[in-house]
């Protein structure tokens, strides 16, 4: 074997190890979701008795479909709000010189490191008093807040890379300020904004601690909280098939995002990390 082939074989071996490590738990939950209730605990990695009944079961109950609606709605609104606020702040951080910049970044770093459980008690109390308990805004507010630090760090590192002189150059060439912004700057800024949107959406979609503490009914319960509270057929049996099917459904969107936007996610997180 030449050195090159040997090297390539080595890389394929590493690739195989990574595939197995990453995908075995995913394959396992998919397998559980396809097993019939009677064979769910047979310990076999590949189902012996295939069924889609777990999926039809979860989609026929309000618990899951409402939770899915809540997850999507709350996730998108929180993400949009966080990204809009972060765009303004990140522009200031990346482009403007102002006193208190360090203090502002320190605050956002402190928020990022804050133990979220410490907020749960007071928010639970306050939300009950002002009627935000078990509502969409009751989750959107903490999600948006905890998404802001990451959004600001990632966006400001993207904004620093934009060659802003191009805007003036376009104006010298006869573009109006509006054209210079929409035709030159916006296209350069959009990839960073899309990346931030994806990263923040994944965070909101993943949250469990606020969802389980600040909701109680299908009004605002998101999928992770709903899954943890699926009723079993008895107190001592877990509804494995339902949980697995719901887990697969909630995993599909993030898998698609990662497969489509891998390059952006890597760029976003590494850029944020270097500048941070």
């Amino acid at each position: 074997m030449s050195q090159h082939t040997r090297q390539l074989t080595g890389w394929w071996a590493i690739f195989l190890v990574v595939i197995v490590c990453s995908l075995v738990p995913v394959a396992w939950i998919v397998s559980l979701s396809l097993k019939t209730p009677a064979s769910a605990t047979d310990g076999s990695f590949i189902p012996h008795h295939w069924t889609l009944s777990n999926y039809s079961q979860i989609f026929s109950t309000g618990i899951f479909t409402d939770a899915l609606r809540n997850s999507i709605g709350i996730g998108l609104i929180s993400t949009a709000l966080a990204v809009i606020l972060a765009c303004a702040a990140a522009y200031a951080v990346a482009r403007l010189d102002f006193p208190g910049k360090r203090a502002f970044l320190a605050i956002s770093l402190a928020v990022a490191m804050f133990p979220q459980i410490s907020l749960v008690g007071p928010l639970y109390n306050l939300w009950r008093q002002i009627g935000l308990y078990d509502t969409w805004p009751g989750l959107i507010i903490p999600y948006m807040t905890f998404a802001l630090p990451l959004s600001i760090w990632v966006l400001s590192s993207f904004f620093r890379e934009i060659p802003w002189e191009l805007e003036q150059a376009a104006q010298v060439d006869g573009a109006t300020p509006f054209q210079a912004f929409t035709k030159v700057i916006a296209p350069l800024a959009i990839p960073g904004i899309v990346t931030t949107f994806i990263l923040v959406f994944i965070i909101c979609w993943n949250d469990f601690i606020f969802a389980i503490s600040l909701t109680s009914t299908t009004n605002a319960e998101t999928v992770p909280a709903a899954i943890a509270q699926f009723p079993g057929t008895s107190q001592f049996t877990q509804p494995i098939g339902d949980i697995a099917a719901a887990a697969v459904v909630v995993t599909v969107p993030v898998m698609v995002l990662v497969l489509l936007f891998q390059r952006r996610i890597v760029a976003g997180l590494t850029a944020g990390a270097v500048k941070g």
Partner: protein
Amino acid sequence: MSTTAVAAPGTAAPRRRTRLTERARSERKLAAILIAPAAIVMLAVTVYPIVTTIVLSLQRADLRFPGANKWVGLDNYKAVLTAPVWWSSVAHTVIITVIAVAFQFLFGMLLALAMHRTLVARGLFRSIALIPYAIVAVVAAYSWNYAWSLSNGGWIPHLLGLSSDPLSSTFGNYVAVIITEIWKNTPFMALLLLAGLALVPDDLQEAAKVDGATAWQRFWRITFPLMKPAILVALLFRTLDEFRIFDVIYIFNQGAQGTESISMLNYSTLLDRLNLGLGSAVSVLLFLLVALIAFVFIKGLGAAATPGK
């Protein structure tokens, strides 16, 4: 947004000073307007709860007995700090954090090196490696929980030929919880380290190669020292996150089986036992521990960054 860029070139020499200050003033004003919404949201949503938490931690406050609130000074702290359950939750959290972060670092570094250098299917390789990062923590916890559970027909006891349920022992629970955390968070660690790897100049590596340095020497003498700040940032983020571990433990056993973490204890004191006074004291102590960890790392980061200059 384009106004500042248009006003930017201050070329007229004699009036430069006044124009600059004017420009600086308008720049500050714009900056204040732009950062205000984000700053207000972050402060409002965190400062109010912090203040109420501190106030409640100094009171006897129990939702089961509303109206019986009373100032008790530091009694809640005394009660928490003398309770074995607090110290055992600290011990559980430290054990999980140290072991999980150590393995995340080891595997994350290998994964980062592989992602950085891979010759095959780079895009697909990175996508697949990132999947655990994106998966909902609750889903990861269920998948691994069912995988380890003998009574739920998991594949791991099946594969290892275990006759007793690993999830009925404390040790088995720790192994399962820590492996879940390692699986879920290694990709994020790898990405943070990848950012550091990108900063190591290729020509430096090449030069060392020409001078006869082995791959091992090149890693320890060149890559590792240059990556030190990135490594500390990655360890800081992961340690703080791991120290707040909640989701996986909640799904596994809600802190039974001797795995109760500080966050889990905090949650059950606040929301199951509804004891806001004691729960708030736990929150404040957790917050102080997190701040202490952050402080130590940031000190270390400062020390690592200065000799390079």
